């Protein structure tokens, strides 16, 4: 003997709600389509300058590229076969020195900011934020007055100082973020094994945050490698091969600036080729930093 299912007292209400939901779904589809198209238009507009700058630089710069372009020293205007080898080495030395100083200071400062909550930390954090907003030319003038005038001559080291100051706030804030993202329970686990706080920081926190720290460093280097204004006041540029940081030195952005404003077409081409190379370097650094950031995400 089968019992009939009791009539559903909520049936009418349920059907009405279903009908309303279906109607609102159609409406939402239309809204969604309109919103998506608006977003698409704005995206396209935003991409225009980026794509045109890139395309133009590639189109002009790729013609300058050759093996000699990367391996040779510059030649005077009108003499073919010149290259940017000295500027590549110069940028490596200047930015390498800058990073060598800024990275340890920046990471330790980031560790301090992440681990302490006092007023001093707040002041330092604010100072780092202000520093990251200071126009790079002002830091260049500062390095000029402090080092170039103080020592009596232009030098790559003064350029490294200026670039290092620019890198510092980026590294500090990126390190702080990376270190803060390490779960505090790992710190507690380390301490609960009888480790000192400094040991936990060195052996647990920093290794766990390492991908994030590398991300910050790469971003800072990517920023530093393209900076021109501070180098105009310090490393000043050179036509010759220089590896002594106490002397003036060529650098990639300086080549772009100095050759680009010349009247000679071959020097202008060198500037385009160098600009394209700079863009490529920054692209590689940015992509690299993203890869490391993704690795940090996977650790947790």
């Amino acid at each position, binding site marked *: 003997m089968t019992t009939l299912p009791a009539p559903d007292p909520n049936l009418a209400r349920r059907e009405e709600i279903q009908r309303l939901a279906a109607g609102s779904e159609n409406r939402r589809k239309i809204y969604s389509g309109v919103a998506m198209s608006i977003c698409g238009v704005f995206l396209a507009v935003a991409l225009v300058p980026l794509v045109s700058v890139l395309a133009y630089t590639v189109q002009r710069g790729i013609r300058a590229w050759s093996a000699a372009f990367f391996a040779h020293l510059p030649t005077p205007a009108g003499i073919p076969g010149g290259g940017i080898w000295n500027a590549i080495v110069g940028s490596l030395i200047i930015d390498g020195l800058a990073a060598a100083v800024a990275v340890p200071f920046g990471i330790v400062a980031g560790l301090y900011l992440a681990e302490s909550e006092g007023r001093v930390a707040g002041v330092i954090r604010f100072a780092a934020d202000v520093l990251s907003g200071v126009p790079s030319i002002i830091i260049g003038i500062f390095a000029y007055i402090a080092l170039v005038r103080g020592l009596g001559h232009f030098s790559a080291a003064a350029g490294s100082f200026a670039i290092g100051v620019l890198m510092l706030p980026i590294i500090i804030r990126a390190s702080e973020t990376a270190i803060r993202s390490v779960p505090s329970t790992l710190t507690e686990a380390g301490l609960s*094994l009888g480790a000192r706080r400094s040991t936990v920081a060195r052996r647990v926190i920093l290794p766990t945050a390492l991908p994030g720290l590398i991300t910050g460093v790469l971003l800072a280097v990517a920023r530093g490698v393209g900076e021109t204004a501070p180098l105009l006041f310090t490393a000043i540029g050179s036509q010759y091969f220089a590896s002594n940081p106490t002397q003036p030195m060529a650098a990639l952005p300086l080549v772009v600036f100095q050759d680009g404003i010349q009247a000679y077409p071959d020097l202008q081409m060198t500037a385009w080729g160098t600009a394209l190379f700079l863009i490529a370097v920054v692209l590689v650094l940015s992509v690299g930093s993203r890869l490391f950031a993704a690795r940090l995400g996977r650790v947790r």
Partner: protein
Amino acid sequence: MTKPMTEPLTERQLGMATEKALTPPPPGNPVMRLRDVGVAFAGRTAVRGVTLDVPEHQVTALIGPSGSGKTTLLRTLNRLHDLTRTAQVSGQVMLGDIDVYGGSISPTLLRSQVGMVFQRPNPFPTMSIYDNVVSGLRFNGARRKALLDEAAESALTAAVLWDSVKHRLKAHASMLSGGEQQRLCIARSLAVEPRVLLMDEPTSSLDPQATKRIEELVTELKTRVSIIIVTHNMQQAVRVSDYCAFLLMGDDRAGQLIEAAPTTKLFEDPSDERTLDYINGRFG
């Protein structure tokens, strides 16, 4: 019907009165003694007036509803509150003859004697299984390979993990399942050979099977280390603990100790009505 009869009676009444007022002494020697312990955060009292003896080589459970201060109390025992600037601990905590907050022992040295296992397994993500187990020894300066190897095998064996990981000690700790990771964390604590092991709801993130294995492990480990375990699962307290302390949030929203007794006594014949209400599920 005179003096000889009344005297013993009075004594028994007195005895009963004391038994009601004080918590019965725990079986065996106390390894930790808490006297009027309180914790306040930024001036707000979170735990107040806890006096408790923790028996050696037994499992002591801290039970009570959420907000009763179980974890807060647990973290006073290895001075983890030192990390929180606003935290203030009052009263006295003794580990054997050592006054934990007395200044005669550094927090780091104390924590090498009072280990801790957390709610979620937290192996160090950058380290291998082996490196995790011996990390505490290395943090404390041990370098000799024979010592590290021996400690690793002993601790992993005690945590019933040795057989399943002995061929992949160099593998990443994240390769292990949640339950295995928690046993790895227990092994990591045991490797330092602490006198007391604090466990803060060690099974709360594990499935029933892994929970069962951790519980079995806890009861096996008490010959090696005295255990204090926080749990909000009363069945778990009954299954693993010998001694049990019941905490409850008072009217001032501060946790306090209602009573402590051998687990069977606390669950079968609690002295306080609030304990009875809690274990019968009337609140919490």
